[in-house]
């Protein structure tokens, strides 16, 4: 048997019971996704933005571990003939310029709101009203985008490289890329440890709490 399951592949064109199965899978996957993110601390704004103040690098540790482990898993399963990696990669084409510009804007929005779009749902689910406010903002911002998109001209599709992978770019096997990413992650985790110790020492010398205060205002 090869994955993704052909029964569920190309979900958007599915109808009837396969579509219902797909939606049920979505709920199950979502429950696991939301549970793990909450337990990682991603429902708390201070734990997320701590990344950008050098006080709490949980975001980097969790994200990088997840990316590296899923990448290794995908490469191994692909090598074993169990996963059609190219079929998954087909969903992630590169449009370089909008992704870089949009990425910077999203990063600014992250620090302004204290969440990213996914974690704002987790915060909402744990009762955080600032999380709910972020969710509403994301909804509004995406509608504004749809309204102005025709005026953006060719920019949203600029820098089009198609399905362009790191292994194609570096001209090495995907397994080599996975090994490099694991090595990069290990270096990043070491540096993260130094940064956290320094960030906490700095805030202590200013008589501030070692990590960003986690006070909430009950309403």
């Amino acid at each position, binding site marked *: 048997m090869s994955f993704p399951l052909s029964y569920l592949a190309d979900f958007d064109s599915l109808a009837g019971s396969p579509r219902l199965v797909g939606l049920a899978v979505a709920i199950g996957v979502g429950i696991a996704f939301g549970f793990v993110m909450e337990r990682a601390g991603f429902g708390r704004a201070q734990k997320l933005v701590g990344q950008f103040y050098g006080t709490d690098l949980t975001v980097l540790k969790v994200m990088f571990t997840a990316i590296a482990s899923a*990448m290794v898993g995908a490469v191994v399963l692909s090598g074993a003939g169990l996963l059609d990696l190219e079929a998954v990669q087909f969903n992630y084409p590169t449009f370089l310029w*909008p992704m870089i510009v949009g990425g910077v804007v999203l990063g600014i929005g992250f620090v302004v709101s204290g969440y990213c779009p996914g974690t704002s749902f987790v915060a909402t689910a744990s009762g955080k009203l600032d999380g709910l406010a972020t969710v509403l903002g994301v909804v509004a911002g995406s509608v504004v985008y749809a309204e102005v998109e025709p005026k953006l001209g060719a920019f949203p599709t600029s820098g089009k490289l198609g399905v362009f992978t790191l292994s194609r770019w570096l001209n090495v096997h995907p397994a080599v890329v996975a090994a490099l990413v694991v090595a990069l992650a290990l270096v990043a985790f070491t540096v993260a440890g130094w940064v956290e110790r320094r960030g906490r020492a700095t805030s202590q010398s200013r008589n501030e709490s070692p990590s960003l205060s986690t006070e909430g205002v009950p309403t």
Partner: protein
Amino acid sequence: MERDPEKFWNPYVAGLALGAVLLVTYLVMGRGLGASGASFRVGVWATSVVAPAHASAVPAMSGAMEDHHPLDDWLVFEVLGMLVGGALAAWTSGRLRREVLKGPTFGAAGRLALAVAGGALMGFAAKLTRGCTSGQALSGGAVQSVGSWAFMFSVFAGGYAAAYFLRRQWR
């Protein structure tokens, strides 16, 4: 089970768990996780209720309503699951509490206003980048998309550039 709101999973264990969820999603569905796409569909649905003719005249919106109801979508159901999973995890860890998270000296109204504003920036940006930190950085990054990695480094750059100006929010 003891509930300690200050106790979180070890970040590397949480990362491995997240990676496993992502890998299973690739295997079963042939795609990764996501979030902002669901937010957009909620916006499309709201617009289609208030101004149906307008919604079908906007290309990006009509595309999301073509074949199915705008909320009949994989990501919308995945986010419904996220809300359940998040609430369950918060409840069982003693973190399920109605509150506004902010620094002790910053006003709650200002904090909520910044949350809406930051959310709006991200909602706009995530459409431009075809996915957010979940749907692009995490899900595309793990299958080695160059665009996903460029996006991820840009998010960090934007966050670090803006952090100094927003520091009062957390003090």
